[in-house]
């Protein structure tokens, strides 16, 4: 690359390679660097094995956990169930409330100011109340996670419904579609890309909230595994649990992203 150009670098087309490597390879190198760095740091003896274990050991204790019947049925499955339930509920409630807000100006102006500030208030503070009311089972976790993830679904659904082309609205009028037909044939398909973005965020929020509730107060679940292992100084299991959580969150995001991309007509 010629360095003598008078054109400043900020308007030149971005480089496609650095040191002969494309950006995707640098991403991979960065991840590998972090993993190998932890491995060597843990093996170097500079840190107590009570504080950090090598990545290879984290992976092998994660494998051990997977072999335990109790872990699968007692922790992994309940976490999955909570996430799926909260996600399904917030999808259903979120899109319906979004529709209601578009149909009724009153509902919209009543809800909008609360939706705007919702994520500023740490709604997690309500979790202890739910625990007192419903015990430490799946119910309070699902209620809280649904409430936490539904707002982002609502906001995106409203944006989507609002962006329906006026001409499609007119067509719906001229065909005198019923309210439900209007929703199913006009509003929903037109808002779908925005709704899908909202759902993707909603899933991330649901996972965060489920694991956080399990982590703070609960009797089971992936989050509980990490918290219990920490409290009993079982460092390898703690890191194995964290590895599970990270893998679970990333996998769920990638999978949902792939599924949703199939329905997104804007990207086709």
């Amino acid at each position, binding site marked *: 690359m010629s360095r003598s150009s008078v*054109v*400043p670098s*900020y*308007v030149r087309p*971005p480089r*496609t390679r650095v040191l002969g490597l494309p*950006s*995707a390879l*640098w991403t991979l190198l*960065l991840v590998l660097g972090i993993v190998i760095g932890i491995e060597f740091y843990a093996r170097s003896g500079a840190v107590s094995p*009570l*504080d950090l274990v090598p990545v290879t050991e984290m992976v092998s204790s994660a494998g051990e956990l997977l072999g335990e019947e109790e872990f699968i049925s007692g922790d992994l499955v309940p976490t999955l169930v909570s996430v799926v339930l909260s996600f399904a509920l917030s999808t259903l409630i979120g899109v319906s409330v979004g529709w209601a807000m578009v149909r009724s*100006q*009153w*509902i*919209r*102006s*009543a*809800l*909008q*100011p*609360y939706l*705007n500030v919702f*994520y*500023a*208030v*740490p709604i*997690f*503070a*309500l979790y*202890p*109340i739910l*625990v*007192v009311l419903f015990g430490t089972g799946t119910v309070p976790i699902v209620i809280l996670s649904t409430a936490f993830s539904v707002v982002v679904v609502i906001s995106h659904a409203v944006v989507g419904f609002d962006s329906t082309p006026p*001409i*499609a609205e*007119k*067509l719906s009028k*001229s065909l005198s579609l019923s309210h439900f037909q209007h929703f199913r*044939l*006009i509003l929903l*398909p*037109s808002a*779908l890309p925005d709704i899908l973005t909202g759902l993707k965020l909603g899933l991330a929020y649901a996972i*965060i909230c489920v*694991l*956080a509730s399990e*982590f*703070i107060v609960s009797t089971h679940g992936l*989050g509980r595994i*990490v*918290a219990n*292992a920490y409290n009993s100084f079982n*460092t390898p299991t*703690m890191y194995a649990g964290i590895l599970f*959580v990270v893998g679970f*969150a990333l996998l769920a*995001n990638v999978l949902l992203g792939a599924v949703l991309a199939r*329905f997104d*007509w804007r990207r086709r």
Partner: protein
Amino acid sequence: MSTAAAVANAATPNSDHARPPAHRHQVDRVRRKATSRPLVAPAVLAILILSAWWIAAFLADSTVFPTPVEAVEGLRNDLRNPRFIDSILTTLRVLFGSYLAAAAIGTAAGILLGLSAFWSRAVLPVVYAGNSIPKITLYPIFLTFLGISDVSRGAFAFVSGVIPMFLIAVEATAGVSRLHLKLAATLRLNWPQLLWHIVIPSVVPALVSGLRLTFGLTFLGLLLAEMFSGSSGLGFEILRNVTLARMENILGEVILIAGLALVPTLALQLLERRVHRRFGAGR
């Protein structure tokens, strides 16, 4: 599913007259009515929720489920306790420090990375992945390395806030208009001048929105950390009251936390509106 697109294409010019004008007036009137008194509907909703809470508490008629009055009473009792005041001050102090650090470092690092399209593309996927994992489960790592103290809680709150702030700053910087960059090149601006005259004015609107979002996330991170390993602080007070099953105090504290969170958020929202008026709404 491209029904809507197909529908839009298939629409004939005739459908221009589909909506009777009377209906349009009605919509306009409804809209004007709602905007001229923007506080009526939210206030009605608040009253509805409060009365539902009251009726539920009255019907349950239990010692566990308090009425709104009992919750406020519980909060007032708490506020007379010097240890509780201490907890509030601890939380506010730690929150202030970690929020400032998250905002400053996230902004600076984000703008720096955003200036390089290549390195943004290389680094961003890792940061986005990191942002989507439930960070609270990483909190034990903070505890092991930093000990149970305000330092580990503050560090966790900082991390909860700095990642989203960083992502917003990178995206905003990467989105600086190419036309403006070309103008800068024509004027032979050097890097500091480019930053000061082009980049910063373009990213300010997005940064101010980021500041508002980051505040909520930092506060949430801090409360979660306090709930898990507090010796003081609002999160700790709440969880202590759970073991004592003192619902009126928990609800009172929730009201207090909502108040503490809303004041800076509303202030930042005002700032956001002014900045958007001055610099444009960003992208």
